[in-house]
């Protein structure tokens, strides 16, 4: 084999290896000689982010994702990135894992958390805060496929619901529903009228009750006064004396009658006795007429009998009304 052929073989091999290795490194974006600044982002999940994806800050590509590892406790994913540019990141930096475009390529963007207050960035444990490599919390925007899946599920449910409605809501159902609505409307109207009527009745009952209560109060007050008077009268000793006097006068009259019947001789004495009796009777009558004494006051008060009678009438009316219209005295409440 000639030297030229051997050289050719070597050249082909070197060229092929160079194409493979250099091309791979170039396409992966490896930059030789530039210092890299490591950074780690903790996120709940990474969606479709993969090693090699871009790291962007303010729209400028400043690095690439190097490794992605699930944390040992399984609570988060640690995304290690290498920043190719010496860029001063904000103090409240956070990582947003999001699609770069609608065609499945993802990126990790370094942002200031204050710009995205609604994002729930992952809280970095204190152990990581003290690590040599800076660790920031991240937030993963739900990928389009998940949103699409959710939307598809919702649309499927809606379709099922629509089908069921379509099955249930036929023309007969519509007519029934229309009739039901009409019935409900009529019932509502009647209920409204009933409520209005009952409200008026209730107002009337209330007024009657107030009036009845006033009258009962007045009657009871008058009865109380009358009863007090009766009680006072009964308890007063003058009544006994008056009764005694009346009894005595009656006895005297009987005596006079007896004397008159038995003896007509002593007419003068009899007349004198009669005069005395009449005088005594006149005195008693005068006392009664003047209203003095318990019985006099009782007899002199002309309103007592009227009031008592009015009270009895009112009580009769009240009892009658209670029997006939018990609803007036029962509080009616609707709604």
């Amino acid at each position, binding site marked *: 084999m000639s030297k030229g052929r051997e050289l050719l073989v070597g050249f082909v091999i070197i060229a092929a290896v160079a194409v493979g290795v250099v091309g791979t490194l170039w396409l992966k974006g490896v930059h030789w000689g530039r210092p890299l600044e490591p950074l780690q982002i903790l996120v709940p999940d990474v969606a479709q982010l993969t090693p090699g994806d871009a790291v962007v800050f303010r729209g400028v590509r400043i690095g690439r994702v190097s490794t992605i590892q699930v944390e040992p406790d399984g609570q988060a994913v640690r995304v290690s990135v290498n920043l190719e540019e010496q860029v001063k990141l904000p103090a409240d930096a956070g990582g947003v894992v999001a699609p770069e*475009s609608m*065609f499945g390529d993802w990126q990790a963007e370094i942002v200031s958390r204050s710009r995205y207050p609604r994002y729930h960035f992952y809280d970095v444990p204190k152990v990581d805060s003290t690590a040599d490599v800076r660790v920031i919390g991240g937030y993963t925007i739900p990928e389009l496929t998940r949103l699409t899946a959710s939307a598809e599920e919702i649309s499927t449910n809606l379709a099922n619901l629509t089908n069921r409605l379509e099955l249930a809501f036929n023309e007969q159902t519509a007519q029934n529903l229309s009739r039901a609505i009409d019935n409900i409307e009529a019932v509502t109207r009647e209920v409204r009228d009933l409520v209005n009527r009952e409200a008026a009745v209730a107002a009337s009952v209330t007024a009657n009750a107030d009036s009845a209560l006033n009258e009962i109060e007045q009657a009871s007050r008058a009865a109380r006064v009358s009863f007090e008077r009766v009680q006072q009268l009964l308890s007063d000793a003058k009544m006994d004396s008056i009764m005694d006097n009346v009894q005595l006068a009656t006895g005297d009259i009987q005596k006079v009658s007896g004397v008159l019947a038995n003896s007509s001789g002593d007419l003068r004495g009899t007349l004198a006795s009669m005069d005395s009796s009449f005088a005594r009777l006149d005195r008693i009558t005068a006392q009664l007429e003047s209203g003095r004494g318990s019985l006099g006051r009782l007899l002199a008060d002309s309103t007592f009998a009227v009031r008592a009678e009015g009270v009895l009438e009112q009580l009769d009316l009240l009892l009658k009304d209670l029997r006939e219209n018990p609803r007036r005295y029962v509080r009616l409440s609707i709604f």
Partner: protein
Amino acid sequence: MRISLLRPVEAVGQAVLSAVAAVGRAGQLGLGAVRALRKGSIWGPHLLPQMAKIGVDSVPIALFIALFTGVVLSLQASYTFTGAIPLYFVGTLVGKTMVLELGPVLTGLALSGRVGANIAAEIGTMRVTEQVDALETLAYDPNAYLVVPRVLAGALMFPMVVLLANGVGVLAGWATSLSLLDMSSQEFLKGLRLFFRSWDVWFSVIKSVSFGITVTSVGCFFGFGTTGGAEGVGRATTRSVVVSSMIILVLDAFWAAVLLK
């Protein structure tokens, strides 16, 4: 009458037996080649010439195929994507398709015709002219002398050719995008880098190694099994190309199913 009725059954039996015998011969050849790896003094001197013959001499045809494949890929991707998908995905499609599929497979198919047929014809001729028997008479292991250097050269050089073909194909697609399409280098490279993974290159290399071993092994197998003079050599050559092409396509699907899950 009875004989004619039994002929189909007889044919099935013959086919099965010949298939089993072929598998047995292939196994014998493979085992013999593995055993012959120890005899480096025999196959060593022939490795580099075979690498030049199988690899270097195949580079032009492989690059020619890759060149026009890259051009066609770029144009077809642009034609397909226009109005629906950003054009920078032309770079993605050219890169992915060349590295993952067309680079190894087209190169493998092309080389199965060129290398596999060459090996089958060469060894078949040696077989029918009893040169293989002469080697055995001279105490040379035909496997070590004929099979091992060719298979090793194929396993080593196929990936090199495929890598070069991949590079040329991507460059051709890039050049086409710049010259024939309304694209910039930034756009093409953005798409090219977008979904690029270094595993893609490894996948291409693994496939091409398997294709190299397949093409050379099948050529050697049919070459060693050649009978019937010049006509037999031609038949072995044809079979070698057909069978190695079929195996390449089967392996292509196999590796995709195994390695791209």
